[in-house]
């Protein structure tokens, strides 16, 4: 018996005396959120390093005799000579459904005062995007609830669609509307008990935003009941540039969890212009060579590796990305906008002039495009809105010429009248997404000329009345459109009858 005890004692002794190897270095200089470190000879690129006081950093510059690290925390408590150790780990963030309804920082730590997050898993912040074999082409729709987008610039699950425009043109509003619409669809779908229903979870990444704006966004999502399906990753303007640089990657890691687990997710990067600026700041402090507009040479890779992580995986889920880019004076040919335009699968361009004319959302139909979304558009929308983009383009052309003279033939006049009505029809208030079946009904009424007798200025009122008519009195018809997702002769007849009924009751 004593031999057995001795054996156990020996085993304990072995375990307790086992030495742990650490690779260390010391801070040579620390400034502007970046530390220069002597030593750390074993450190790997992008490895997490540990500073005193539980502050962590990431090794970004591995030079011959020093290591440049960005510090993710309070720099003020670090001083020259402090010991730094390698961790052998890549930076990871908590992932999973436990984060839904919560606001977290770039490292996944809660910032909403609702207590700790019980996340069971973590994912690395930096991850190689899925390869060609693992991917599947985009074919399932993701409805934004914005009629101009769903009918003319459709978005599919797994797509990357850029939202681009000057400041104050409603870029964030489109993203928030889309998140709210996903929550509305999720609620209806989950309540229906349909086993094939796939909810879409949302992640909103705020980079370099004002804290007040983030609070307003959270309040809007909460008011619409969408927060329970949403994760907010906040790296506000007051946060250090390292956190602003990391936040989109952290959000992508959270989205990837949904995708890898057979679920669908939507991620909004608001916005990547500020993300590029934060990265430029870090790069300049790290003394990396600067290029055009002082951005470092790898600024394209900064965004391409992020957006390539959005995909639709074969046999798994999808991650749809809505990156936002802010332009200056509508200049889409600037460095960062052209980079992101070339990476994404299309863009929704918002124009200041349209916004000021009261056309909201201020989507410029001519400059906006969706390269893969049409494959994901449902047949019903194609049937009623397939020709809309062409009609609107013709209208713009004719409207430009019509300014020079009043002698117009009847056909041109009719085209102008129709175009003006379509423009009015697409006006939509903020945070008020329209279900796809209602969009189909409204577009059907427009195609069949039900808005033709209505004065152009009263089209918005008429459309609103038609929407109310359908949602309150034609629920069964809307459900049929939603489930069939295509208009057959029977459905068309029912829609025609419903529109006739509305017309008889509507008085402009």
């Amino acid at each position, binding site marked *: 018996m004593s031999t057995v005890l001795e054996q156990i004692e020996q085993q304990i002794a072995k375990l307790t*005396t*086992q*030495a*742990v*190897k*650490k*690779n*260390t*270095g010391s801070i040579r200089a620390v400034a502007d959120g970046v530390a220069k470190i*002597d*030593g*750390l*000879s*074993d450190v790997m690129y992008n490895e997490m390093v*540990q500073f005193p006081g*539980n502050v962590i950093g990431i090794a970004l510059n591995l030079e*011959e*005799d020093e290591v440049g690290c960005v510090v993710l925390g309070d720099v003020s408590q670090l001083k020259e000579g402090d010991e730094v*150790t390698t961790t052998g780990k890549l930076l990871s963030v908590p992932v999973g459904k436990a984060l839904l309804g919560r606001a977290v920082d770039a490292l996944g730590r809660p910032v909403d005062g609702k207590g700790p997050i019980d996340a069971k898993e973590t994912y690395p912040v930096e991850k190689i995007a899925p390869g060609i074999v693992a991917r599947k082409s985009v074919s399932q729709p993701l409805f934004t609830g914005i009629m101009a987008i769903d009918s003319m610039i459709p978005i599919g699950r797994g797509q990357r669609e850029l939202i681009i425009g000057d400041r104050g043109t409603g870029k964030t509003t489109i993203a928030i509307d889309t998140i709210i619409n996903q929550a509305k669809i999720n609620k209806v779908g989950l309540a229906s008990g349909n086993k094939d229903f796939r909810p879409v979870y949302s992640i909103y990444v705020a980079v370099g935003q004002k804290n007040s704006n983030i609070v307003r966004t959270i309040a809007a999502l909460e008011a619409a009941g969408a927060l329970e399906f949403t994760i907010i990753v906040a790296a506000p303007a007051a946060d250090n540039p390292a956190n602003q640089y990391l936040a989109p990657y952290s959000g992508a890691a959270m989205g990837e969890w949904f995708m890898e687990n057979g679920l669908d997710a939507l991620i909004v990067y608001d916005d990547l212009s500020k993300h590029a600026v934060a990265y430029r700041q870090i790069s300049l402090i790290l*003394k990396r060579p600067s290029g055009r507009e002082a951005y470092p040479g790898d600024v394209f890779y900064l965004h391409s590796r992020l957006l390539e992580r959005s995909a639709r995986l074969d046999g798994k889920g999808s991650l749809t990305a809505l990156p936002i880019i802010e332009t200056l004076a509508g200049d889409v040919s600037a460095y960062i906008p052209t980079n992101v335009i070339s990476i994404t699968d299309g863009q929704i361009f918002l124009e200041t002039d349209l916004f000021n004319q009261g056309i909201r959302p201020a989507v410029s139909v001519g400059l906006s495009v969706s390269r893969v979304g049409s494959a994901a558009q449902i047949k019903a929308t194609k049937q009623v809105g397939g020709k809309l983009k062409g009609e609107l383009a013709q209208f713009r052309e004719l409207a430009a010429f019509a300014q020079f003279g009043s002698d117009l033939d009847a056909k041109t006049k009719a085209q102008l009248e129709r175009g003006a009505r379509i423009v009015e029809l697409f006006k939509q208030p903020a945070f008020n997404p329209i279900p796809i079946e209602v969009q189909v009904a409204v577009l059907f009424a427009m195609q069949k000329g039900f808005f033709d007798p209505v004065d152009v200025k009263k089209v918005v009122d008429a459309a609103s009345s038609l929407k109310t008519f359908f949602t309150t009195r034609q629920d069964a018809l809307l459900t049929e459109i939603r489930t069939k997702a295509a208009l057959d002769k029977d459905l068309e007849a029912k829609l025609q009858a419903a529109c006739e009924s509305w017309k008889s009751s509507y008085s402009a």
Partner: protein
Amino acid sequence: MAAHSKSAQHLARQLFRLSFEQDALSAERVGGVLAWVEKHRPANPVIVLKAYRRLVEAEVARSRALVEHAGAVSEDILGAIGAALNRKYGRNIGLSAQANPALLAGLRVRVGDDVYESSVSGQLAALAASV
């Protein structure tokens, strides 16, 4: 200033590479480097020599092991540690022992950037960080 510093660092690295003889730092060669600097007075000699000193210091630290211990350590244990380090690094590692009561119990061995932690205080610190 930044350009001067860069060229001084570059020169220091060149001088450091010249200080080796058969893959080991040679005192004779270091002396030769210092004599060259004194004679030729390169631009920014202070920055050059400071950078050179840092590189030499790091190299010296790589061939020396500092064994910190809380209690008494026998010569046998030190010998075993020395032999194990020689084997691991494939070169002769000079050993020096130093008492450090802050470790509470156990040992800590430092060779250049590498630290082998087998002390109670180290384990407590790791535990505190993981909680």
